[in-house]
Protein backbone atom coordinates (compact mmCIF):
# COMPACT_ATOMS: atom_id res chain seq x y z
CA UNK A 1 0.00 0.00 0.00
CA UNK A 2 2.72 2.43 0.97
CA UNK A 3 5.73 0.34 0.19
CA UNK A 4 7.68 3.21 -1.31
CA UNK A 5 8.03 4.89 2.06
CA UNK A 6 7.97 1.92 4.37
CA UNK A 7 11.63 1.07 4.01
CA UNK A 8 12.64 4.47 5.35
CA UNK A 9 13.83 5.83 2.04
CA UNK A 10 15.09 9.28 1.28
CA UNK A 11 11.72 11.03 0.72
CA UNK A 12 10.94 11.37 4.38
CA UNK A 13 13.93 10.89 6.56
CA UNK A 14 12.76 9.26 9.76
CA UNK A 15 13.89 11.09 12.85
CA UNK A 16 14.66 8.51 15.51
CA UNK A 17 13.20 8.90 18.97
CA UNK A 18 15.77 10.26 21.38
CA UNK A 19 17.05 7.55 23.67
CA UNK A 20 16.65 7.71 27.42
CA UNK A 21 19.14 10.26 28.62
CA UNK A 22 20.52 9.29 31.95
CA UNK A 23 19.92 6.44 34.28
CA UNK A 24 17.87 8.41 36.75
CA UNK A 25 16.69 6.34 39.66
CA UNK A 26 14.75 9.07 41.40
CA UNK A 27 11.23 7.95 42.27
CA UNK A 28 9.47 11.15 41.27
CA UNK A 29 6.08 9.86 42.35
CA UNK A 30 7.24 9.26 45.91
CA UNK A 31 9.05 12.56 45.93
CA UNK A 32 6.00 14.46 44.72
CA UNK A 33 3.79 12.77 47.31
CA UNK A 34 6.31 13.57 50.04
CA UNK A 35 6.42 17.20 48.93
CA UNK A 36 2.64 17.41 49.16
CA UNK A 37 2.70 15.88 52.61
CA UNK A 38 5.48 17.96 54.12
CA UNK A 39 5.37 21.17 52.05
CA UNK A 40 9.14 20.85 51.82
CA UNK A 41 10.42 23.44 49.36
CA UNK A 42 13.71 21.63 48.86
CA UNK A 43 11.76 18.81 47.21
CA UNK A 44 9.95 21.33 45.05
CA UNK A 45 13.28 22.79 43.94
CA UNK A 46 14.42 19.28 43.05
CA UNK A 47 11.30 18.78 40.90
CA UNK A 48 11.82 22.17 39.32
CA UNK A 49 15.45 21.47 38.43
CA UNK A 50 14.51 18.22 36.73
CA UNK A 51 11.19 19.03 35.09
CA UNK A 52 11.43 22.80 34.49
CA UNK A 53 13.91 22.56 31.58
CA UNK A 54 12.05 19.53 30.16
CA UNK A 55 8.75 21.40 30.20
CA UNK A 56 10.34 24.38 28.46
CA UNK A 57 11.75 22.12 25.78
CA UNK A 58 8.40 20.37 25.35
CA UNK A 59 6.32 23.54 25.16
CA UNK A 60 8.63 25.13 22.61
CA UNK A 61 8.23 22.07 20.43
CA UNK A 62 4.46 22.22 20.63
CA UNK A 63 4.58 25.81 19.38
CA UNK A 64 4.53 28.00 22.49
CA UNK A 65 6.32 31.27 21.76
CA UNK A 66 9.76 31.88 23.18
CA UNK A 67 8.51 35.09 24.82
CA UNK A 68 5.93 33.32 26.99
CA UNK A 69 7.37 29.85 27.46
CA UNK A 70 9.07 30.57 30.79
CA UNK A 71 5.90 32.11 32.12
CA UNK A 72 3.98 28.95 31.21
CA UNK A 73 6.66 26.77 32.79
CA UNK A 74 6.39 28.86 35.94
CA UNK A 75 2.59 28.53 35.93
CA UNK A 76 2.93 24.78 35.45
CA UNK A 77 5.33 24.55 38.38
CA UNK A 78 2.97 26.54 40.58
CA UNK A 79 0.10 24.27 39.55
CA UNK A 80 2.24 21.26 40.48
CA UNK A 81 2.82 22.80 43.89
CA UNK A 82 -0.85 23.61 44.42
CA UNK A 83 -2.30 20.38 43.10
CA UNK A 84 0.27 18.03 44.58
CA UNK A 85 -2.19 17.18 47.36
CA UNK A 86 -4.52 15.62 44.79
CA UNK A 87 -1.70 13.47 43.40
CA UNK A 88 -2.12 9.89 44.53
CA UNK A 89 0.95 7.72 43.86
CA UNK A 90 -1.27 4.65 44.07
CA UNK A 91 -3.28 5.80 41.08
CA UNK A 92 -1.01 8.13 39.15
CA UNK A 93 2.60 8.40 38.06
CA UNK A 94 4.48 11.66 38.46
CA UNK A 95 5.94 11.87 34.94
CA UNK A 96 2.57 11.27 33.28
CA UNK A 97 0.84 13.60 35.73
CA UNK A 98 3.28 16.44 35.07
CA UNK A 99 3.24 15.76 31.33
CA UNK A 100 -0.56 16.00 31.21
CA UNK A 101 -0.61 19.17 33.25
CA UNK A 102 2.00 20.82 31.00
CA UNK A 103 0.25 19.62 27.84
CA UNK A 104 -2.98 21.25 28.98
CA UNK A 105 -1.20 24.44 30.01
CA UNK A 106 0.49 24.76 26.60
CA UNK A 107 -2.64 23.96 24.61
CA UNK A 108 -4.85 26.22 26.69
CA UNK A 109 -2.49 29.07 25.93
CA UNK A 110 -2.08 28.29 22.22
CA UNK A 111 -5.80 27.82 21.55
CA UNK A 112 -7.14 30.32 24.06
CA UNK A 113 -9.56 27.64 25.20
CA UNK A 114 -9.27 24.81 27.67
CA UNK A 115 -8.33 21.44 26.23
CA UNK A 116 -11.26 19.16 27.16
CA UNK A 117 -10.19 16.82 29.95
CA UNK A 118 -11.91 13.88 31.55
CA UNK A 119 -10.71 13.98 35.13
CA UNK A 120 -12.50 16.95 36.55
CA UNK A 121 -11.61 18.62 39.78
CA UNK A 122 -14.01 17.92 42.55
CA UNK A 123 -15.27 14.76 40.89
CA UNK A 124 -12.68 12.30 42.12
CA UNK A 125 -14.06 8.88 41.41
CA UNK A 126 -13.40 5.63 43.11
CA UNK A 127 -11.34 3.21 41.02
CA UNK A 128 -13.57 1.09 38.83
CA UNK A 129 -13.22 -2.33 37.43
CA UNK A 130 -10.92 -2.37 34.44
CA UNK A 131 -8.84 0.51 35.62
CA UNK A 132 -5.17 0.24 36.33
CA UNK A 133 -4.35 -1.23 39.68
CA UNK A 134 -2.14 0.47 42.24
CA UNK A 135 1.50 0.14 41.38
CA UNK A 136 0.82 -1.21 37.93
CA UNK A 137 1.31 2.21 36.39
CA UNK A 138 4.85 2.35 37.67
CA UNK A 139 5.63 -1.03 36.24
CA UNK A 140 4.25 0.00 32.85
CA UNK A 141 6.18 3.24 33.02
CA UNK A 142 9.34 1.30 33.68
CA UNK A 143 8.73 -1.09 30.78
CA UNK A 144 7.88 1.83 28.52
CA UNK A 145 11.54 2.84 28.45
CA UNK A 146 12.50 -0.40 26.74
CA UNK A 147 9.31 -0.83 24.75
CA UNK A 148 9.72 2.50 22.99
CA UNK A 149 13.12 1.47 21.70
CA UNK A 150 11.57 -1.58 20.07
CA UNK A 151 9.27 0.33 17.73
CA UNK A 152 10.08 0.14 14.01
CA UNK A 153 11.16 3.55 12.64
CA UNK A 154 7.94 4.33 10.78
CA UNK A 155 5.90 3.71 13.92
CA UNK A 156 8.29 5.68 16.11
CA UNK A 157 7.95 8.49 13.61
CA UNK A 158 4.19 8.91 14.05
CA UNK A 159 4.62 8.81 17.83
CA UNK A 160 7.30 11.47 17.52
CA UNK A 161 5.14 13.70 15.34
CA UNK A 162 2.17 13.32 17.68
CA UNK A 163 3.89 13.94 21.01
CA UNK A 164 6.70 16.29 20.02
CA UNK A 165 5.00 18.27 17.27
CA UNK A 166 1.34 18.02 18.23
CA UNK A 167 0.34 17.07 14.70
CA UNK A 168 -3.14 15.78 13.89
CA UNK A 169 -3.51 12.63 11.77
CA UNK A 170 -4.31 14.67 8.68
CA UNK A 171 -1.20 16.84 9.14
CA UNK A 172 0.99 13.77 9.54
CA UNK A 173 -0.57 12.29 6.41
CA UNK A 174 0.14 15.46 4.43
CA UNK A 175 3.68 15.78 5.76
CA UNK A 176 4.60 12.17 5.00
CA UNK A 177 2.61 12.00 1.79
CA UNK A 178 0.67 8.91 2.87
CA UNK A 179 -3.10 8.35 3.21
CA UNK A 180 -4.88 9.24 6.45
CA UNK A 181 -5.74 5.57 6.91
CA UNK A 182 -2.06 4.63 6.86
CA UNK A 183 -1.25 7.14 9.59
CA UNK A 184 -3.96 5.67 11.77
CA UNK A 185 -2.82 2.15 10.96
CA UNK A 186 0.72 2.97 12.02
CA UNK A 187 -0.44 4.51 15.29
CA UNK A 188 -2.65 1.49 16.00
CA UNK A 189 0.26 -0.85 15.32
CA UNK A 190 2.52 1.18 17.59
CA UNK A 191 -0.08 1.19 20.40
CA UNK A 192 -0.67 -2.53 20.05
CA UNK A 193 3.04 -3.23 20.08
CA UNK A 194 3.63 -1.14 23.18
CA UNK A 195 0.65 -2.67 24.99
CA UNK A 196 1.74 -6.14 24.05
CA UNK A 197 5.16 -5.41 25.41
CA UNK A 198 4.08 -4.39 28.88
CA UNK A 199 1.18 -6.80 29.16
CA UNK A 200 2.92 -9.81 27.69
CA UNK A 201 6.47 -9.74 28.94
CA UNK A 202 7.74 -9.70 32.44
Amino acid sequence: MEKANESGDSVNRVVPLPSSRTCDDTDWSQLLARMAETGDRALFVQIFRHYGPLLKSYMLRLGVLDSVVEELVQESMLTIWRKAKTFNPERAEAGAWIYTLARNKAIDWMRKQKYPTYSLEGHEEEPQEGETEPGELHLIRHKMKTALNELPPEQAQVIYMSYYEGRAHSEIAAKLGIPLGSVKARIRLASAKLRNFWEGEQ
Partner: protein
Amino acid sequence: MNTIRHHLDDATLLSYSSGSLTNAMALVVACHLSVCADCRRKAGEMELLGGEMLERLQPADLSDSALQNLLDALDEEQPPEPTTDAPALPPADVPAPLWAYIDKPLDELAWKSLAPGFAYVDLPCQGTGASKLLRIAPGKSVLPHTHTGNELTMILRGSYVDDVGRFAKGDIADLDDAIEHQPLVDSPESCICLVATDGPLRFTSLLGRIVQPLTGF
Protein backbone atom coordinates in the same frame (compact mmCIF):
# COMPACT_ATOMS: atom_id res chain seq x y z
CA MET B 1 -25.59 0.98 34.17
CA ASN B 2 -25.58 0.16 30.50
CA THR B 3 -22.71 -1.56 28.78
CA ILE B 4 -20.61 0.37 26.32
CA ARG B 5 -20.03 -1.64 23.16
CA HIS B 6 -18.31 0.81 20.85
CA HIS B 7 -15.09 2.43 21.95
CA LEU B 8 -12.50 4.93 20.84
CA ASP B 9 -9.93 3.91 18.27
CA ASP B 10 -6.34 3.66 19.59
CA ALA B 11 -5.26 6.20 16.98
CA THR B 12 -7.81 8.69 18.30
CA LEU B 13 -6.83 8.05 21.91
CA LEU B 14 -3.16 8.58 21.18
CA SER B 15 -3.92 11.76 19.30
CA TYR B 16 -5.94 12.96 22.30
CA SER B 17 -3.22 12.08 24.80
CA SER B 18 -0.52 13.78 22.76
CA GLY B 19 -2.61 16.95 22.56
CA SER B 20 -2.88 16.80 18.79
CA LEU B 21 -6.67 16.53 18.52
CA THR B 22 -8.72 19.63 17.82
CA ASN B 23 -10.76 20.84 20.78
CA ALA B 24 -13.94 19.81 18.96
CA MET B 25 -12.77 16.19 18.68
CA ALA B 26 -11.11 16.23 22.11
CA LEU B 27 -14.43 17.18 23.67
CA VAL B 28 -16.07 13.99 22.38
CA VAL B 29 -13.10 11.92 23.52
CA ALA B 30 -13.15 13.46 27.00
CA CYS B 31 -16.90 12.81 27.26
CA HIS B 32 -16.47 9.14 26.43
CA LEU B 33 -13.50 8.81 28.79
CA SER B 34 -15.59 10.26 31.59
CA VAL B 35 -17.94 7.27 31.34
CA CYS B 36 -15.70 4.45 30.05
CA ALA B 37 -13.16 2.81 32.36
CA ASP B 38 -11.68 0.67 29.55
CA CYS B 39 -10.77 3.63 27.39
CA ARG B 40 -9.68 5.60 30.45
CA ARG B 41 -7.17 2.91 31.22
CA LYS B 42 -5.75 3.11 27.71
CA ALA B 43 -5.64 6.90 27.87
CA GLY B 44 -3.73 6.57 31.13
CA GLU B 45 -1.17 4.37 29.41
CA MET B 46 -0.76 6.87 26.62
CA GLU B 47 -0.18 9.59 29.18
CA LEU B 48 2.55 7.39 30.66
CA LEU B 49 3.98 7.33 27.16
CA GLY B 50 3.79 11.14 27.20
CA GLY B 51 5.72 11.14 30.46
CA GLU B 52 8.42 8.97 28.94
CA MET B 53 8.57 11.16 25.81
CA LEU B 54 8.95 14.22 28.04
CA GLU B 55 11.80 12.54 29.90
CA ARG B 56 13.67 11.94 26.64
CA LEU B 57 13.72 15.55 25.51
CA GLN B 58 16.87 17.58 25.49
CA PRO B 59 16.30 19.99 28.42
CA ALA B 60 16.13 23.69 27.54
CA ASP B 61 17.89 25.97 30.03
CA LEU B 62 15.67 28.30 31.96
CA SER B 63 16.77 31.84 32.68
CA ASP B 64 18.86 32.38 35.81
CA SER B 65 16.06 34.18 37.62
CA ALA B 66 13.46 31.46 36.99
CA LEU B 67 13.95 29.60 40.26
CA GLN B 68 14.03 32.75 42.37
CA ASN B 69 10.86 34.05 40.65
CA LEU B 70 9.15 30.79 41.39
CA LEU B 71 10.17 30.79 45.05
CA ASP B 72 9.02 34.41 45.35
CA ALA B 73 5.68 33.36 43.87
CA LEU B 74 5.42 30.61 46.48
CA ASP B 75 5.82 33.24 49.20
CA GLU B 76 2.81 35.03 47.77
CA GLU B 77 0.69 31.90 47.70
CA GLN B 78 -2.46 32.15 49.75
CA PRO B 79 -4.03 29.03 51.15
CA PRO B 80 -6.94 28.18 48.83
CA GLU B 81 -10.31 29.61 49.78
CA PRO B 82 -12.36 26.94 51.44
CA THR B 83 -15.02 26.10 48.90
CA THR B 84 -18.38 25.84 50.57
CA ASP B 85 -20.29 23.99 47.92
CA ALA B 86 -19.11 21.39 45.45
CA PRO B 87 -19.55 22.23 41.74
CA ALA B 88 -23.05 21.43 40.50
CA LEU B 89 -23.23 17.97 39.01
CA PRO B 90 -24.50 17.73 35.45
CA PRO B 91 -27.73 15.84 34.65
CA ALA B 92 -27.25 12.10 34.14
CA ASP B 93 -27.31 12.33 30.33
CA VAL B 94 -24.70 15.10 30.15
CA PRO B 95 -21.10 13.87 30.50
CA ALA B 96 -19.12 16.14 32.82
CA PRO B 97 -16.74 17.56 30.15
CA LEU B 98 -19.72 18.66 28.04
CA TRP B 99 -21.26 20.50 30.99
CA ALA B 100 -18.70 23.28 30.58
CA TYR B 101 -20.02 23.96 27.06
CA ILE B 102 -23.76 24.02 27.69
CA ASP B 103 -25.45 25.79 30.55
CA LYS B 104 -28.72 23.87 30.61
CA PRO B 105 -30.02 20.33 30.54
CA LEU B 106 -30.36 18.90 27.01
CA ASP B 107 -34.10 19.50 26.78
CA GLU B 108 -33.77 23.16 27.66
CA LEU B 109 -31.18 24.04 25.01
CA ALA B 110 -32.03 26.34 22.10
CA TRP B 111 -32.32 23.62 19.44
CA LYS B 112 -32.25 24.92 15.89
CA SER B 113 -34.45 23.05 13.49
CA LEU B 114 -32.71 21.76 10.40
CA ALA B 115 -35.60 19.86 8.85
CA PRO B 116 -38.58 18.04 10.32
CA GLY B 117 -37.18 15.58 12.85
CA PHE B 118 -33.68 17.04 12.80
CA ALA B 119 -32.32 19.72 15.12
CA TYR B 120 -28.90 20.83 16.32
CA VAL B 121 -27.03 23.03 18.78
CA ASP B 122 -23.61 24.53 18.00
CA LEU B 123 -20.90 24.15 20.61
CA PRO B 124 -18.29 26.89 20.95
CA CYS B 125 -15.08 25.01 20.19
CA GLN B 126 -12.01 26.94 19.06
CA GLY B 127 -9.86 25.94 16.13
CA THR B 128 -10.53 23.89 13.04
CA GLY B 129 -13.41 21.50 12.87
CA ALA B 130 -16.67 21.82 14.73
CA SER B 131 -18.77 20.08 17.30
CA LYS B 132 -22.51 20.02 17.60
CA LEU B 133 -25.29 18.29 19.38
CA LEU B 134 -27.65 16.58 16.96
CA ARG B 135 -31.17 15.49 17.77
CA ILE B 136 -32.87 13.06 15.43
CA ALA B 137 -36.45 11.88 15.86
CA PRO B 138 -37.38 8.19 16.13
CA GLY B 139 -37.59 6.39 12.80
CA LYS B 140 -35.57 9.04 10.95
CA SER B 141 -32.62 8.02 8.89
CA VAL B 142 -29.64 9.78 7.37
CA LEU B 143 -28.68 9.08 3.74
CA PRO B 144 -25.94 6.53 3.24
CA HIS B 145 -22.67 8.40 3.31
CA THR B 146 -18.94 8.15 3.78
CA HIS B 147 -16.67 10.63 5.50
CA THR B 148 -14.02 12.89 4.14
CA GLY B 149 -11.92 12.89 7.30
CA ASN B 150 -12.33 11.89 10.91
CA GLU B 151 -15.74 12.10 12.49
CA LEU B 152 -16.50 11.26 16.12
CA THR B 153 -19.99 10.67 17.51
CA MET B 154 -21.02 9.89 21.05
CA ILE B 155 -24.58 8.87 21.88
CA LEU B 156 -26.03 10.73 24.84
CA ARG B 157 -29.62 9.54 24.63
CA GLY B 158 -31.60 7.07 22.53
CA SER B 159 -29.98 4.81 19.97
CA TYR B 160 -29.45 4.15 16.29
CA VAL B 161 -28.49 1.24 14.10
CA ASP B 162 -26.29 1.25 11.03
CA ASP B 163 -24.12 -1.15 9.04
CA VAL B 164 -21.61 -1.30 11.88
CA GLY B 165 -24.06 -2.15 14.65
CA ARG B 166 -26.30 -0.63 17.26
CA PHE B 167 -25.16 2.49 19.08
CA ALA B 168 -26.66 3.43 22.45
CA LYS B 169 -25.87 5.74 25.34
CA GLY B 170 -22.13 6.11 25.93
CA ASP B 171 -21.15 4.42 22.67
CA ILE B 172 -18.69 6.04 20.29
CA ALA B 173 -18.74 5.90 16.52
CA ASP B 174 -15.16 6.62 15.53
CA LEU B 175 -15.36 6.87 11.75
CA ASP B 176 -13.14 7.84 8.90
CA ASP B 177 -13.38 7.79 5.14
CA ALA B 178 -13.09 4.02 5.03
CA ILE B 179 -16.60 3.51 6.38
CA GLU B 180 -19.97 3.99 4.72
CA HIS B 181 -23.06 3.97 6.88
CA GLN B 182 -26.73 4.92 7.08
CA PRO B 183 -27.78 5.47 10.69
CA LEU B 184 -31.45 4.87 11.53
CA VAL B 185 -32.82 5.99 14.90
CA ASP B 186 -34.44 2.91 16.45
CA SER B 187 -35.23 4.16 19.96
CA PRO B 188 -38.73 5.25 20.99
CA GLU B 189 -37.27 8.60 22.07
CA SER B 190 -35.20 10.99 19.97
CA CYS B 191 -31.54 10.16 19.61
CA ILE B 192 -29.23 12.90 20.86
CA CYS B 193 -25.56 12.70 19.99
CA LEU B 194 -22.47 14.80 20.31
CA VAL B 195 -20.71 14.94 16.93
CA ALA B 196 -17.35 16.41 15.98
CA THR B 197 -15.43 16.65 12.74
CA ASP B 198 -11.81 17.66 12.29
CA GLY B 199 -12.06 19.62 9.05
CA PRO B 200 -13.26 23.20 8.62
CA LEU B 201 -16.03 22.55 6.11
CA ARG B 202 -17.08 19.06 6.95
CA PHE B 203 -20.11 19.94 8.99
CA THR B 204 -21.67 21.68 6.04
CA SER B 205 -21.53 18.44 4.17
CA LEU B 206 -22.78 16.47 7.16
CA LEU B 207 -25.82 18.71 7.53
CA GLY B 208 -26.30 18.64 3.78
CA ARG B 209 -26.51 14.87 3.87
CA ILE B 210 -29.25 15.06 6.44
CA VAL B 211 -31.30 17.73 4.75
CA GLN B 212 -30.88 16.55 1.19
CA PRO B 213 -33.33 13.66 1.29
CA LEU B 214 -35.95 15.87 2.87
CA THR B 215 -35.71 18.75 0.45
CA GLY B 216 -35.84 16.21 -2.35
CA PHE B 217 -39.45 15.31 -1.60
